[in-house]
């Protein structure tokens, strides 16, 4: 079969890393860092999501076409959130 067989040890390592990152993000959330609370929490979430996609979902060993699908999804999600926020965040500019 075409699927790549990763070692079980790598799965345990990813699992441990994900748990450490969860503990880290919960700990950081208890400190008041202003707007950096959101930045740090979402950065850690992106790291965790990347680890799950690359190793648990075998994206690391997938063909380029799969990568293209993933990049397209992220691009469209970025457009959805980015364009909405470009409206939301600039509405106050007119009344100034």
């Amino acid at each position, binding site marked *: *079969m*075409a*699927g790549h*067989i*990763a070692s*079980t040890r790598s*799965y*345990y390592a*990813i*699992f441990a890393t*994900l*748990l450490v990152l*969860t503990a880290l*993000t*919960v700990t950081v*959330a*208890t*400190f*008041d*860092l202003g707007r950096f*609370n*959101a930045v740090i*929490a*979402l950065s*850690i*979430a992106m790291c*965790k*999501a990347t680890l*799950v*996609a690359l*190793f*648990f*979902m*075998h994206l690391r060993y*997938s*063909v380029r*076409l*799969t990568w293209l*699908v*993933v990049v*397209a*999804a992220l691009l*469209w*999600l970025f457009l*959805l*959130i980015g364009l*909405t*926020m470009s409206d*939301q*965040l600039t509405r106050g500019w007119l009344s100034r």
Partner: protein
Amino acid sequence: MSDTAATLAHQHQFDDAAQQYSASTLGMWIFLVTEVMFFGGLFTAYVAYRTLYPDTFGHASNYLDLRLGTINTAVLIASSLTMALAIHAAQVGKRTAMITLLLATILLGTTFLGIKAVEYAHKFEAGLVPGAGFTYAGPDAPQAQLFFSLYFGMTGLHAAHMIIGIGILAVLVAQGRRGRFGPEYYTPVELSGLYWHFVDIIWIFLFPLLYLIDRH
């Protein structure tokens, strides 16, 4: 065993089993992209309203149970591990291990839903469910109601995906017991794994957005 023999042979439109496997995987990823857009709409709504009412959303998020949320995050990550190990077991032909690991994944998924149900019950008791019975003590109750609407909408949709996922895994267990999967053919296990991990990734973003930001 005729079941196994039938699945080993690739369908006539494919050159070989490897091509059939890549096509199946690609199809699953494309489905997951539609799921990204499905949840993406809710995430966009959350980010937009959170920007409009940052203080109220921050205050309202402190009503969520951080302890249970953290435990559930760990439970879901553990279920992703057992899912990944189940696929590995299928790849190397350990049928009993695969079934045990799939059952462990189902158990962890059910645990997640059980903890979620406890959280929901607390919200009902505290009158934090949007609707006629919404009794929010803090300021700006209408905006807080918006937060809890998004909380129930997003976690509810996520929970619905978990329930579907558990159903799919139960089918895999039944098929696995009949010897349907092995090193030569485990595509359904792999694709169900992709779905399960995707649902995990959704929670990885829901947890900080709903529970963590403004916790201090």
